[in-house]
C-alpha cells in the first residue's frame, strides 16, 4: 500500500478517536448533570416534611392533598440515583407530579391567611422558591448536556462509535411540568 493510504487510514482512526473521546466526555457530563439534579431534588425532598408539618396545623381537612404529597415524595426519594434511562424518565415524571402537588398546596395556602402569614410558612415558601430555581437550573444543565450527547451520537460517524463509548439508549430530557410550559415573555416581567 502506498504511503497515502496509510496517511488516510491514520487520519480516519485519529478522527474516530477524537469523536469517541468527545462522546465519552459528553456521556460523563450527562452523568454529572444527572447527579446535580439529584442533589437539588434531595433538597426539595428534605424541605417537604417541614412544609407538611406547618401546613397540617391549618389544613386539617386537606388531608388527602397532604397525604398525596407525602406519597409522591416517598416515590421520588426512592428513585434518586437511578441511571437507567427508563428509571430516569420515571423519576422525572414522579418529580413533576410532586411539583404539581406542591403547587396545589401553596395555592390552597393562599386561601388561609393565618397559614399564609405564618412566619415558618413564609420562610419555607422562600426556601422552596430557591430550591425550585436550583432544580430548574439543574434541569437546564442536564438538558443541555443531553442535547450535546445526542448531537455527538446521532451525527455521522457518531452512530459508529457511540456503542464503543458505552452509550446505549439515549437518556431522556427532563421536561418542565405541563403547567409550567406555557409561553412566557421575560420582557413582561422587566
Amino acid at each position, binding site marked *: 500500500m502506498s504511503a497515502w493510504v496509510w496517511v488516510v487510514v491514520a487520519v480516519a482512526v485519529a478522527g474516530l478517536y477524537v469523536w469517541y473521546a468527545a462522546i465519552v466526555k459528553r456521556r460523563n457530563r450527562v452523568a454529572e448533570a444527572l447527579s*446535580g439534579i439529584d442533589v437539588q431534588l434531595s433538597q426539595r425532598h428534605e424541605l417537604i416534611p417541614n412544609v407538611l408539618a406547618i401546613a397540617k396545623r391549618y389544613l386539617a381537612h386537606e388531608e388527602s392533598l397532604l397525604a398525596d404529597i407525602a406519597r409522591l415524595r416517598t416515590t421520588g426519594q426512592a428513585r434518586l440515583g437511578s441511571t437507567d434511562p427508563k428509571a430516569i424518565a420515571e423519576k422525572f415524571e414522579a418529580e413533576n407530579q410532586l411539583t404539581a402537588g406542591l403547587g396545589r398546596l401553596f395555592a390552597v395556602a393562599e386561601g388561609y391567611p393565618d397559614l399564609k402569614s405564618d412566619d415558618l410558612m413564609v420562610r419555607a415558601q422562600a426556601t422552596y422558591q430557591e430550591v425550585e430555581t436550583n432544580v430548574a437550573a439543574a434541569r437546564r444543565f442536564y438538558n443541555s448536556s443531553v442535547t*450535546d450527547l445526542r448531537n455527538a451520537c446521532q451525527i455521522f460517524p457518531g452512530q459508529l462509535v457511540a456503542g464503543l463509548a458505552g452509550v446505549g439508549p439515549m437518556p431522556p430530557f427532563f421536561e418542565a411540568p405541563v403547567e409550567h410550559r406555557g409561553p412566557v415573555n421575560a*420582557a413582561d416581567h422587566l
Partner: protein
Amino acid sequence: MSGPPGRSAAAGALVAAFGLAFVVWMAVLWSSVRQDPGIGGWLGGLFGGGFAALVVAGTGAWAAMYFVARPARRAAEQELAVYAADDDLGRILGELEVVRLRTERQINASAAWRIPLCVLGAAALWVASQFTDDPADGTDLLIFGGMAVIGGYVWASMALGDAYRKTFKERVLPKLVAGFGALSWRPAQPPLDELRDHGLFTNFDDHEAEDEIYGEYRGLPLSIVELKLTRQESKKSVTVFNGLTAAVTLPRGLSGTTIVVPDRGFFGNMTRLRGRYQPVRLEDPVFEKAYEVYGSDQISARALLTPAFMERFMALATCGRFGAPVALIQDNRLLMALETPGARNLFEPPSYRKPAASREALTQMHEDIAAVLKAADAIIDLDQAARLQPGFTAPGRTT
C-alpha cells in the same frame, strides 16, 4: 489693635505689583535703548515702559484688593454666620465657606509672589534672548508674560485647591448620600484584584478612583465605585474602562464563581479562563452570541442566569446608558462593571472660586448620586429574588 483682615497680605501684594511694574519699566527702557541708542530710544523706553509699568501697577493694585483683601473680609463675616446656621448641612456648608475663603486667600497670597516670580523668570528669558541672533520681540514678551501669569497661578492654586476639593467631598458627600437611605460615601476602594484575577479586565496598569457609595440599599449591601482603568501604550495613556463598578450581595443561596464577559470571537475566547473555569453554555441564543459565561459550578451559574436575568442583562446593555456590562458572581456577591462612555467625572465639588453652598454644584452632585443609584436599581432588578426583597420601599430622593 489689629487692622482689617488680610491687610498685611494686601500690602505685600501691592509692594510686589509695584516692584514688578518697576522691573517691566526698566526692561522696556533697556530694550528700547539697546535697539536705538539715540534720544528716540530713551524717550520711547521712558514713555512706553512707563505706560506698561502703570498698567502692571494698576492691575496689581486691583488684584490685591479683589483677591486678597475682599476674601479676607468675607471670610471674617462668614465665620460669624456659621455659628448661626441650625441645619446640619447648612452648618457644614457654612464651615466649608470659611475654609474656601481661607483657601482662596492663601492661594491669592501665594500667587502674589509666585506670579511675579514666574513673570520675572519669563522677563529674564526674554532679556536673555536679546543676546541671541534671533531676539524675541514685544509680542513674544506679552506671550511669555501671559504664560508666566497662568503658570504662577496654577503653581499657587494646585495643592491648596485639591485639599479644599477633598475636604468638600469628605464633608458634604456623606450627608447628601445619606438622604437616599442607609448609605454613605468614602474614598474609593476599587475591587482591582477581583477585576484582574477573574479576567474581567486584565490589561490595565493604572487606575483612577475617587468616590465610593456604600451601605444598604433596598435592603441589600451595596458598594458603587467610580473607576477609570488605563494602560500605557507607547507613551500614550489608553482607557481600558471608564464607568461604575457596583457590588451587591443578593438574597440567594448561590455558590461558586460565575463570570460573564462580552464574546470576543473564537480566538479571543480561547485565551480566557479556560483552565480555571468551565464554559457555561446557556439556552438563550442571543445572549450566547453576545456573551461568554464561565463558571466553577454549572448549576449555580444557571440558578442566577435565568432566562429573565439574561433578558434584563441584555436590556441593560442596549438601553444606551451603558456599554456592554461584565459581571462576576462569587457566591451571593454580584459585581458588575458598567461602562459609561463619554461620561464626565461624577461627584465633582464646586471650585474654590465659587461659594461652597453653590446651588448649581450641589444639585449636580445630588443628580449624580441619583443617577448612580439608578444604575444600582437596574443591577438589583436583574435578579428576581433581589427585586422582590421583602421590606423594600422606594428610597427618598430628597436631601
